[in-house]
């Protein structure tokens, strides 16, 4: 999506011609570079200095202006992990704690991520929205790090404790975790359970599609 939206935009073309240098790394082909920078979600865009040192990163898609501004800000020390951490020391701001936790998560620093997610939870109510976000954030970290057993355990607990958005998300993510574990039967059962529990969810069609794919994998359907 960055290719079809951001990198073809005139402002971005000018930016990467005169201001910063762009390098596109295929993470599955250049695994050494992807591993060096712990890039595990795509797209992930890093700002690095000439010596290769990372300044900060943006995970996921952002519209052109927001995308470019993020890197200008990072280059000026705004919105970086150091900046956010310094701001967090000046007062209680759970959204800021959440942002810091997510940054550690994407850097693959589990202990730091968990500490900041815990701070989000402990500075609020155990079942409020930000606590739910923090619990999902930590479970997502486990999933990204391929600690599937721990991820499943976290998602199960969230699904049991939260009823609305977070419970729904956790139920769906349990199914996705089973699928990543190559536990086809477990994934199908959990997707079915999700549809039964949350029939009004926007993700129902996705879940139905996943069941169909798991029952009839593309290579099997082609036979």
């Amino acid at each position, binding site marked *: 999506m960055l290719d079809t939206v951001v990198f*073809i935009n005139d402002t971005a073309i000018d930016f990467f011609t005169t201001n910063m240098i762009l390098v596109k790394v*295929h*993470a599955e082909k*250049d695994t050494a570079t992807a591993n060096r920078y712990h890039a595990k979600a*795509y*797209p992930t*865009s*890093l700002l690095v200095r*000439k010596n290769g040192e990372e300044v900060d990163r943006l995970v996921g898609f952002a519209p052109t202006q927001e995308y470019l501004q993020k890197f200008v800000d990072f*280059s000026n020390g705004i919105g970086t992990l150091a900046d956010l951490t310094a701001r967090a020391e000046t007062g209680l701001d759970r959204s800021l704690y959440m942002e810091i936790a997510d940054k550690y998560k994407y850097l693959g620093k589990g202990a730091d991520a968990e500490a900041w997610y815990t701070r989000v939870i402990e500075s609020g109510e155990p079942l409020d929205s930000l606590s739910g976000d923090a619990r999902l954030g930590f479970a997502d970290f486990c999933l990204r790090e391929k600690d599937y057993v721990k991820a499943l355990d976290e998602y199960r607990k969230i699904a049991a404790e939260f009823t609305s958005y977070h419970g729904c998300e956790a139920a769906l993510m349990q199914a996705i975790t089973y699928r990543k574990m190559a536990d086809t039967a477990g994934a199908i059962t959990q997707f079915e359970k999700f549809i039964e529990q949350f029939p009004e969810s926007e993700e129902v069609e996705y879940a139905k599609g996943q069941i169909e794919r798991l029952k009839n994998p593309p290579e099997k359907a082609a036979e």
Partner: protein
Amino acid sequence: MRIRLILVLFALVLLIAACSGDKQQPSSLVTSAGAAPYYTNLADALQAARGDQYVVVDFYTDW
């Protein structure tokens, strides 16, 4: 004779300069109309950065 020798030496210097120039040109730069120029190799991009110029690394996959 001396003039010829000087001309040959001059041509050789030009040739060496051109070859070394080619070597310095990173090979992974991709340019096309209507798209931001980019490198496909991080080392090339870092080498091309001038002074305190920053590099944006976009990690992507096909899926």
